[in-house]
């Protein structure tokens, strides 16, 4: 009967969006990226729910996850990849960014116990989730932007080649974290006095958290993690300077050496590959 139905409509040339119930369209080539991104969203949602585990709202989050998953399987099972994408963009993405933001806003003032696990668990990536959205990297728009910038660079480069100007080379030196040296820094306390604080690789988590909040406040970056101290030569300004010990922080997926006096960040590389 169903087969008959299908032939009828097939003969009538009614294809496109029209789907007969139960029609299990094979995973089209063009739909797989939608599906992959959507599955990523589902996973992100699951992680978010896990973070709210043990709160009075856990049941609601579970319900939301459960419903989302049901809609996801429903649409995915029928090969309606485009609708699935639309659903996630209109619902899941907003939900994710809203409640991730709420979570992060709360963790900022009371980061003391939180920081113990965070340094190991990719804090930068989480920050990015909110800012850029993790699902856009393969988009047409993103590629177009990259191509335009590349073209601009190439044009500028050929102009420069004619005039023989030297293009400065940016570098990312490899640094080694010193695990025992401690740096002192001054921070203002509530009563306008200055306190001398110490920071080092072996500092207790509270001191690291205090340092992170100090740095966050002074350079205006959130989501930073203290990595350790390292010996570096700061870029020469006039007279050559001796090597000095500076703190290294991790922000949005990359480590930076922090010059405490000038409050400048220099991108560096550590031997560790993955954070």
């Amino acid at each position: 009967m169903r087969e008959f139905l299908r032939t009828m409509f097939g003969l009538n040339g009614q294809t496109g969006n029209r789907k007969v119930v139960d029609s299990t369209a094979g995973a089209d080539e063009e739909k797989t990226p939608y599906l992959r991104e959507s599955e990523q969203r589902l996973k992100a949602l699951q992680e978010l729910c896990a973070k709210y585990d043990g709160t009075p709202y856990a049941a609601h989050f579970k319900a939301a996850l459960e419903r989302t998953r049901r809609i996801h399987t429903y649409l995915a099972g029928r090969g309606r990849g485009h609708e699935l994408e639309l659903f996630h963009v209109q619902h899941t993405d907003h939900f994710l960014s809203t409640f991730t933001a709420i979570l992060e806003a709360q963790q900022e003032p009371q980061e003391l116990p939180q920081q113990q696990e965070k340094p190991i668990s990719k804090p930068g990536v989480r920050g990015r989730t909110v800012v850029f959205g993790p699902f856009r990297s393969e988009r047409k728009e993103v590629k177009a932007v990259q191509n335009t910038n590349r073209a601009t660079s190439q044009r500028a480069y050929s102009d420069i080649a004619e005039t023989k100007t030297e293009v400065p080379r940016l570098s990312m030196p490899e640094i080694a974290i010193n695990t025992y040296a401690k740096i002192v820094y001054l921070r203002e306390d509530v009563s306008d006095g200055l306190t001398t604080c110490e920071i080092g690789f072996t500092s207790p988590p509270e001191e690291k958290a205090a340092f992170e909040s100090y740095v966050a406040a002074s350079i205006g970056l959130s989501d930073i993690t203290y990595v350790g101290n390292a010996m570096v030569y700061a870029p020469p300004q006039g007279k050559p300077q001796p090597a000095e010990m500076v703190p290294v922080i991790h922000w949005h997926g990359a480590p930076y050496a922090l010059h405490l006096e000038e409050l400048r960040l220099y991108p560096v590389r550590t031997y560790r590959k993955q954070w």
Partner: protein
Amino acid sequence: MAGKPENHRKSPPKLTQDQHELLVLYVQRLEAHLEELKAAVAVQVEIETRHLRKILDQ
């Protein structure tokens, strides 16, 4: 807001009244969405059945 859990290991995230309501509404929204999807399919089936019946009657 009553019924906050005790602080164990790390302090659990708390929601304000508004945020909590938003969460509840979102769950309802999802529920409605799923119902809509199913309803849409039901309507489509109905249309196709009638269409077919018409063809058969002729």
